[in-house]
């Protein structure tokens, strides 16, 4: 019986002793790779699993987040639309109730008798007008209603109980009507001014006061204002005249000239003739100026009562003050986008605006 282990041992030792250093290094290197291979297999497995887990987690959380955002947006839209709906319903109800009441109990109704209208009745009507003007002033043309209430106040005659101090009461009602109109027009003007180009004109009342004679006075702006402040200096007068009347909005320059006449102190009205000339792209003036003639009073509301100009722009004039010395008029040139909701731009203007904003592709524009 041979003991194999004892016989082989010296041979292995002899191999190890006889091997050169390069072989030994190779053997050591191979064992390193082997170690690396052994270690890398579980590590790569763990890393892959971790990556898949992380990817799954991130993916899931991203999907959840997007879904939550989507749900929030939907909820928000739904809430907004519901709120809008309920507000519209409320406004609709309110509008129909007030307007129906306004016309049903109208003081213009002869059955009720204008002859003896109490100040309380007019006050009630004024209250309804206040509700309408403050809630629907931006989208409704309320000028005719204001005029009608003004006429009602003027025509009203006191009952026997109210005869004492009637003129004072009447004056207070007219003042209330005017201050309501000024409040609505002022609020609209204040919202338009930052979006447009404002204009301020002060007219000496005596120059345009309505009188019985055939010699009716006129105040031409800017000519008459310039004549006052630049008398004797023609060069200054020309420069001022141009600068005062020139308004530029969204790259479109216009020259606005006015003629005021027939100022009625009692009714607080005056006549206006407005001319708007527009500069063309080549710097020349368009030979077809826009011309308008209208009656200006406190019941002109800029969002509604404005002059439509080319390039979807509007010009509105407001009576800002009227006393025995001066009539103050304020104007604003503004983009049509800020006009009232009922004011729709012309189709060509809408297409131009879309082209300007680059929202139409070439084919549709062509």
């Amino acid at each position: 019986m041979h003991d194999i282990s004892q016989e082989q041992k010296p041979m292995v030792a002899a191999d190890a002793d006889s091997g050169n250093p390069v072989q030994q290094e190779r053997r050591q290197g191979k064992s390193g790779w082997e170690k690396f291979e052994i270690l890398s297999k579980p590590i790569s497995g763990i890393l892959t699993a971790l990556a898949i887990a992380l990817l799954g987690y991130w993916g899931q959380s991203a999907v959840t987040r997007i879904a939550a955002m989507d749900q929030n947006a939907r909820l928000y839209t739904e809430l907004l639309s519901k709120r809008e709906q309920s507000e519209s319903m409320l406004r609709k109800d309110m509008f129909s109730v007030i307007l129906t009441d306004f016309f049903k109990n109208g003081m213009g109704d002869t059955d009720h008798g204008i002859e003896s209208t109490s100040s309380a009745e007019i006050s009630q009507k004024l209250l309804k007008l206040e509700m309408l003007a403050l809630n629907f002033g931006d989208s409704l043309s309320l000028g005719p209603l204001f005029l009608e209430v003004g006429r009602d106040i003027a025509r009203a005659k006191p009952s026997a109980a109210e005869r004492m101090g009637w003129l004072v009461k009447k004056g207070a009602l007219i003042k209330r009507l005017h201050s309501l109109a000024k409040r609505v027009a002022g609020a609209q003007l204040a919202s338009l001014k930052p979006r447009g180009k404002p204009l301020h004109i002060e007219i000496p009342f005596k120059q345009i006061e309505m009188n019985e004679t055939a010699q009716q006075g006129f105040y031409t702006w800017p000519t008459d204002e310039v004549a006052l402040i630049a008398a004797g200096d023609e060069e200054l007068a020309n420069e001022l005249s141009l600068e005062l009347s020139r308004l530029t909005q969204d790259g479109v320059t216009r020259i606005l000239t006015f003629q005021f006449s027939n100022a009625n102190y009692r009714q607080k009205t005056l006549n206006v003739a407005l001319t708007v000339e527009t500069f063309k792209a080549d710097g020349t003036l368009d030979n077809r100026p826009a011309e308008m003639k209208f009656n200006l009073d406190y019941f002109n509301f800029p969002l509604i009562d404005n002059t439509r100009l080319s390039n979807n722009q509007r010009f509105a004039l407001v009576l800002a003050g009227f006393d025995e010395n001066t009539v103050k008029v304020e104007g604003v040139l503004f983009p049509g986008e800020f006009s009232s909701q009922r004011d729709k731009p012309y189709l060509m203007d809408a297409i131009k605006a879309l082209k300007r904003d680059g929202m139409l592709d070439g084919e549709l524009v062509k």
Partner: protein
Amino acid sequence: MGSKALLFLGGFMLLAGAASAAEIYGQLWVTPGNSAPVGGVVETSCGGQAEVDRYGRYRITGLPKNQTCALTIQYRNLTSNLANVYTGSHRNGANFMLKFTGERLLLIRR
């Protein structure tokens, strides 16, 4: 007693005067650029003057009511043309645009 009554009357008159006084206020900007004419001095023919602040605002108080006051501005050694402002109410807003044209300073109401 008499001096007290006189003092009261004087105080009352002062208060009444202040209540009936008017003011002109507003904003000024230089075009082109819309910069504020800082350091400019606004003056009125009705008396009173005010310096334009760094935002272009000015305010002149203690003016007579229901008067047309001619307003000018002195800025960068130039005096602008006149601009009339009527003091019809207690507070009277008047905004102006300033423009240099050659050797002139134009004051344009806006």
